[in-house]
């Protein structure tokens, strides 16, 4: 063996070794955690990513109620996924606890990121730094039964545009029969009510939850106006009695029976209704405020972020940037009837045939999401001041007392 052959072999060997160790050459396998209720939507995006990228992402579905503990324990032990998607409402708590990676500089110049619904960017910002962005949104809307509107002599193409409209239309629908009701809401479900009732308050000018102990909770007349509307409808029998104990199990089930005129719901209901009640003619609109022209929505769903300690944070960041591209938003989400998190894509080729989905997608752009620590304490738990306020106001009729008690309790929680 000559010197040149040995040299060639040495060079070849070194090249192979370098190639093997080079991160730009070797395909990596990433792990992603997603909460169970967002798994279907996430899977579409991950599948699309995997078909077009050498680096593959494997999805691990985590039960909804275990995401918080698994992430916290994972960050402490150094055993975290490369990227994670979770219920957006936990974002402030996760950012403050230092569980997520700062992606401010990487996202600053991204043209697609600039088009993401403001609610997501607002929620994912802590002390002027960004820690995540929108992933698979859902949003609240007003839904109404057009068949019942017709029977009641109402214009089926004119959705209630104010609180007064809801009241007036509900009365006319209730008059249709003893088992037909004008309005429905889940009276013992805190999550359902922050999703569908609070936007009516926000649309009416109220601010619901305090970001800190210095801010006033439940501020503005909108809170009382909406609670009074619900109380009046309850007293007048426009809402079925079954609404009082409903902890969310019948959130949308009653509407599917065709005997409910109007209610707040989520965008997910459109495909559900088309599947479960194909003959039900229903309309979709923004959740209105006290005056005509006022509207809002609660932006829910999942955000995406990189946990602190991610072993492939660079590729995870590429994934986050990619999921905001036209291709991912349209072919991964819209094509599968999932709302995009970019507001400029609310009207797209996949939604054209279904104007109700376009309305829902537009609601993401006008929607709000409260930036608050201790969301579960204030709102989501079965004993929260939020649900206590609604129950005391609507079912006991003590509207002012209910608001005052909830305000005091929320302040106490915000100060913790």
């Amino acid at each position, binding site marked *: 063996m000559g010197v040149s052959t040995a040299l060639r072999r040495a060079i070849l060997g070194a090249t192979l070794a370098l190639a093997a160790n080079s991160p730009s050459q070797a395909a990596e396998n990433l792990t992603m955690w997603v909460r169970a209720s967002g798994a279907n939507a996430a899977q579409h995006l991950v599948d699309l990513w995997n078909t077009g990228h050498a680096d593959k992402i494997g999805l691990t579905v985590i039960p909804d109620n275990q995401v918080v503990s698994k992430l916290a324990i994972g960050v402490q032990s150094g055993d975290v996924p490369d990227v994670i998607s979770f219920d957006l409402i936990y974002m402030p708590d*996760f950012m403050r606890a230092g*569980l997520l990676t700062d992606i401010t500089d990487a996202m600053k110049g991204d043209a697609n990121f600039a088009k993401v619904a403001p609610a997501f960017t607002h929620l994912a910002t802590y002390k002027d730094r960004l820690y995540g962005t929108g992933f698979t949104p859902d949003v609240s809307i007003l839904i109404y039964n057009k068949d019942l509107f017709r029977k009641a002599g109402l214009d089926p193409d004119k959705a209630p545009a104010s609180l007064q409209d809801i009241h007036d239309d509900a009365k006319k629908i209730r008059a249709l029969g003893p088992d037909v009701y004008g309005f429905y809401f889940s009276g013992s479900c805190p999550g359902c009510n922050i999703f569908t009732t609070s936007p009516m308050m926000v649309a009416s000018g109220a601010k619901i939850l305090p970001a800190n102990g210095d801010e006033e909770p439940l501020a503005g007349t909108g809170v009382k106006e909406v609670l009074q509307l619900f109380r009046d409808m309850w007293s007048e029998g426009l809402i079925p009695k079954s609404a009082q104990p409903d902890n969310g199990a019948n959130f949308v089930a009653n509407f599917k029976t065709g005997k409910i005129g109007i209610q707040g719901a989520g965008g997910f209901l459109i495909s559900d209704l088309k599947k479960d009640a194909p003959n039900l003619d229903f309309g979709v609109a923004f959740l209105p405020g006290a005056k005509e022209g006022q509207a809002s929505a609660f932006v829910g769903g999942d955000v995406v972020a990189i946990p602190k300690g991610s072993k492939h944070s660079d590729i995870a960041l590429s994934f986050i940037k990619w999921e905001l591209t036209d291709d991912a938003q349209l072919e991964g989400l819209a094509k599968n009837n999932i709302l995009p998190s970019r507001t400029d894509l609310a009207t797209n080729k996949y939604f054209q045939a279904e104007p109700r989905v376009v309305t829902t997608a537009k609601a993401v752009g006008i929607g709000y999401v409260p930036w608050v620590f*201790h969301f579960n304490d204030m709102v989501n738990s*079965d004993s929260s001041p939020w649900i206590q306020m609604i129950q005391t106001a609507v*079912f006991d009729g003590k509207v002012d007392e209910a608001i005052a008690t909830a305000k005091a309790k929320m302040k106490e929680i915000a100060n913790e």
Partner: protein
Amino acid sequence: MIAMRRGAVGLLYAAPALVFVAVFVIYPMLDLIRMSLTNASLLGGGEFIGLKNYVKAAGDATFWGSLAFTARYTLFITPILIGAGFLLALLAVAPPRIARLTRTIVFMPVIIGLGSSSLLWVWLFDEQVGLINKLLQDLGLIAQPMVWFADATLGLWAVIASIVWKVVGYGMILLVAGIQSVGADIYEAAMLDGAGYWQRVVRITLPLTLRTIALTTLVSAIGSMLAFDQFYIMTAGGPKSETFTSVYWIYQNSFIYFKQGYGATLSLLLMAIIFIASTAQLLLMRRGAPT
């Protein structure tokens, strides 16, 4: 020397059980005590804060309210479970055909998960499609369907009905074992003396199964004091937090509010209360038991 060797061998035999208890009982218990002295959160952290959690618990009206509600639930359901369990046990030691039928029918719900059975009863009590409202209406007992879970008292009794159906078979089986351990010769002697069925039940069966009844009562009372699933699924603590049990409140603090340290404190307090109540119950029953 031999005694020492025997001691060492004995220790060796007991070692697996000791290790098991140390790892799965003593260590978690010590860690729970440690955690109760911190502000540990599900999100991480956990600084030592001394007895602050205990001071907070002393003034936690919801915790004491939930404890009172749990005690009320226990006081209501335990006599029903024991009484019904004893009567069913009498049926279950009757002639073979009746015994087999009773044991099968009554014990079957025991093998269903508590979550599944609670969901089943939610639908049975539903005011629109539930069979119970329909039955009560057909019997003329109510004019309109009742909304069971909109009222704390009605909700409590709805839960009690579901749990009696679910677990009465368990007590029945324990009591059957107790009744069958009474010698047949005692009953034969009583019958020769002319004792009727209920006289034999009251004078022989009841006194001689008192220890089993005491054990069943204790197990039932402890289980009721730890009630969670049925209320979580059927009432969700409502209306207006009036049906929160102690364990439900501990769960809320530990996993919904993320306050693990405070949750640990409440768990220890509940454990101490149940321990004291159970010890008192055992002492009272021992004093009343026939010697």
